[in-house]
């Protein structure tokens, strides 16, 4: 990977991690939505630096839509019944996971891999998704339709209950 791609990768990684920490720590749904949009921008930058521009475009659209839903007026907060002790144990477990991953990344003996810059390849990705791996694409499409239909039904039920 040349210097330009590497600098783009590290800057985008910093943007993504800052956005992720913002989703975790910022108060209020507008700020959390903005942080999620920022993390989407960082993710798209990482994909571009990895020569996956088509994935970057799709990820940017999807994450901006997620940020819009999180920051939108339809958002309602739900308090969980889980005790604070269990939630803090879960957060500590995530921190331990990060420590283990960092240790394995620094001490692991990975094979030296070569980086090959690729084209935009939207047509090749489309043929792969719609011809070779069509079953996975259809499964995700069904999941998306069911999720959006379920969300619409849930929102309609809530509006009737008012």
């Amino acid at each position, binding site marked *: 990977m040349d210097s330009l791609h590497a600098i783009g990768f590290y800057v985008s990684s910093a943007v993504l991690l800052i956005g992720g920490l913002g989703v975790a720590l910022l108060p209020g749904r507008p700020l959390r939505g903005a942080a999620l949009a920022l993390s989407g921008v960082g993710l798209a930058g990482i994909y571009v630096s990895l020569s996956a521009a088509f994935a970057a475009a799709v990820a940017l659209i999807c994450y901006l839509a997620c940020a819009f839903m999180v920051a939108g007026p*339809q958002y309602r907060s739900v308090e969980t019944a889980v005790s604070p002790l269990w939630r803090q144990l879960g957060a500590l477990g995530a921190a331990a996971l990060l420590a283990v991953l960092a240790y394995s990344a620094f001490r692991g003996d990975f094979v030296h891999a070569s980086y090959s810059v690729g084209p935009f390849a939207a047509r090749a990705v489309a043929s792969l998704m719609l011809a070779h791996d069509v079953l996975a694409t259809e499964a995700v499409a069904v999941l998306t339709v069911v*999720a959006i239909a379920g969300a619409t039904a849930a929102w309609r039920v809530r509006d009737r209950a008012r």
Partner: protein
Amino acid sequence: MACAGQSTVSANLVSVFFVAGGIVAVGAFAAGWRRDAAAAVATIPLMFAGAGIAFAGVARFAAAGGSHLVGQELAVLLAITALALVALGLGIAGREATR
């Protein structure tokens, strides 16, 4: 003007794995830290982003020749799945909030 000892910035597969693991851990931390279940749903895209970065990185750094598009394809599918799950989760959370 080039100077002696000048080094180039580079990223390798370990860097990609480190970023991917870090963003998965940040997503898991946020899901455990948030008291609001709807806010925890917003961390699903973060964890899926980590998985997508790992897939795209492995596909791009693969040693064999040819075009490596499977990682890019999985990254696309993960982004769409994250959007669907956030929509469904926020819809269910909004319904539960009225009870």
